[in-house]
């Protein structure tokens, strides 16, 4: 899911410390924040926008496209269902440590209603020069500059580092999509790759993955069909094998999930896999020269 400058955004949990801090940053950057929610603070103004009790009220009151959730883990399910029912096009779920069954519940509800979810446990999305949704340092010009590289990342901090390296190499980003580090997430690496493949102004894609799960392998299947070059970094090659994986979980994954499996699947699909984030500039130069 990519955010657009024209998207009307509400911040759920806008009055909290983090909600306030990042709402101000989003507003300063140009994100069109039209309202916020807090169950007990309806009919007040916060960060110069109206606060509603629910996303459904916000939809009736001001209308919105995207909801950004600054909500504690155990309350996210209810808030996400509220936003989905209100008719949100997209949800950015930043919270970490949401019970997995809650996540599966609102992801299923979103799928039924055609709403897109970024996260949980994402740092959000940035479209340089237009807007951002979440808590990415979009306003830092050494990290985000309007350009032609699409970036998808499971990790906020590592994604930020790749953005920095891309800008240092003389490029800029068309869009950054943080999909989140949780085991079950609404937008997969493959989904983000599809979105970036068709996003105007994108000439190459940088994929930032991690060991575990099979999302990079699934994304590799799609990468095979792409005409745009893809450069990937997979974190965790030096990590000890997962400590905790049930037998049944292991069989569902098959032998997918290891660094070697991801690297060979991506390389077989024509993706350039780099050893360290610092190599991203050189890899993009090599792939974009042709």
């Amino acid at each position, binding site marked *: 899911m990519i955010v657009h400058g024209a998207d009307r955004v509400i911040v759920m949990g806008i009055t909290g410390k983090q909600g306030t801090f990042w709402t101000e940053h989003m507003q300063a950057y140009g994100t069109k924040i039209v309202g916020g929610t807090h169950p007990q603070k309806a009919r007040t103004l916060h960060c110069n926008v109206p606060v509603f009790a629910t996303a459904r009220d916000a939809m009736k009151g001001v209308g919105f496209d995207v909801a950004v959730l600054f909500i504690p883990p155990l309350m996210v399910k209810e808030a996400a269902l509220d936003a989905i029912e209100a008719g949100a096009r997209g949800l950015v779920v930043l919270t970490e440590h949401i019970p997995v*069954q809650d996540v599966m519940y609102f992801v299923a509800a979103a799928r039924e209603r055609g709403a897109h979810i970024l996260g949980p446990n994402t740092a959000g999305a940035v479209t340089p020069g237009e807007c951002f949704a979440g808590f990415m340092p979009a306003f830092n010009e050494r990290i985000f500059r309007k350009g032609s590289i699409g970036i998808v990342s499971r990790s906020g901090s590592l994604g930020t*580092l790749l953005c920095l390296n891309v800008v240092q190499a003389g490029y800029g980003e068309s869009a950054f999509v943080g999909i989140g580090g949780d085991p079950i997430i609404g937008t997969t690496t493959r989904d983000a790759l599809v979105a970036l493949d068709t996003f105007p102004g994108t000439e190459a894609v940088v994929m930032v993955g991690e060991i575990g799960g*099979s999302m990079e392998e699934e994304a590799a299947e799609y990468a095979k069909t792409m005409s745009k070059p893809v450069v990937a970094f997979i974190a965790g090659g030096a990590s000890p094998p997962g400590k905790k994986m049930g037998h049944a979980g292991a069989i569902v994954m098959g032998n997918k999930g290891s660094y070697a499996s991801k690297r060979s699947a991506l390389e077989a699909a024509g993706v350039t896999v780099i050893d360290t984030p610092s190599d991203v500039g050189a890899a993009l130069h090599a792939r974009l020269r042709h």
Partner: protein
Amino acid sequence: MNFEEHAAKPLLAARGIAVPAGALATTPDEAERVAARLGAVVVKAQVPTGKRGKAGGIKLAATPDEAKRHAQAIIGMRIGGHQVRKVLVEQQLPIERELYAAVLNDQSSQGPLVMFSSEGGMDIEELAATAPAKLRRLSVDIRHGLKPDDASSLVRGLGLGAVEAAVAEVLVKLYGAYATLDAELIEINPLVITRDGRVVALDCKFVMDDSALVRQREVAATGTPDTLTGLEAKAKTSGLKYIDLDGNVGVLANGAGLTMTTMDVVRHHGGRPANFLEIGGESYTQARPALELLLSNPNIKSLVVNFCGAFARTDVMTAGVIEAIQALKPRLPIFFSVHGTGDEEAIKLLKDKLGVTPLPTMDDASKAAVDAARRTAS
């Protein structure tokens, strides 16, 4: 969080799934007394790991005296890195047939997955390899749960005979346990049909979602917390994620992805990371205890501090690190790489307070730390 068999089975029993009669014993004498009450028994090591049978941790006993001797041998054994401190002594059952049943969180369907096989008793990997046609899978919409009709379809045509309906009912109850207990995985292997036609859970593996522990406090209290090293336990009390590794280059970074990557880059430059230590998310204010923790590891010869702020503010993290350095005056070389939210303030702080300039990239900082560790070691 893992649950040992003796803690998982009562959770099934409470939901109407039959389990064998039995009791927990921590001494051979206790095991003997339980066996005297139950007749022929099975003595089963209680550790939060699989493959207990292969390790010699599960033994049949025909008499109380035999049960005592088995308990004597099993208690004190090490299985999969865990010391056995107790055994479950259970009545033997006349087994007609062994089945497999499980419900787990499935990444590819983004929902619960029910798995059932008319062959059980061995590892699921083995089942999938030897009898793939008998292993059935059903993705469930978590909003509606497992419907009795769907459970019936899943077990139909596998030659279960008279107990088919009872087996389907166990699946529905197992799904209920999965949903109410916030399971990541709940597995009955084997689920047995006895010669007198009962359906009984002979074993149970249960893993609870760690993110749900806060709303499952009562049940969670019967689970088995992970075995942690001294430093790992200390980290946990500060809300930090720390894992001991065997290298000599200390790693401090923010965010799981960046921390793993710092370890990768240390290895890429020929070094060996000493640890995983992440201070991302809400714990980014914990830089001082984090550094204190690292410095108490005697194996560390040099340290790379790699911050790249998105949510986490690098100036706040750097201030914490500076505080710890000023308080503890460590003698080992420390190399910084600082980028992202708050980096200008962070770089100024390092200059003003420590007279240190961060290196341009994480590769530079990691390489410098690897070289320094090598010099100290030789």
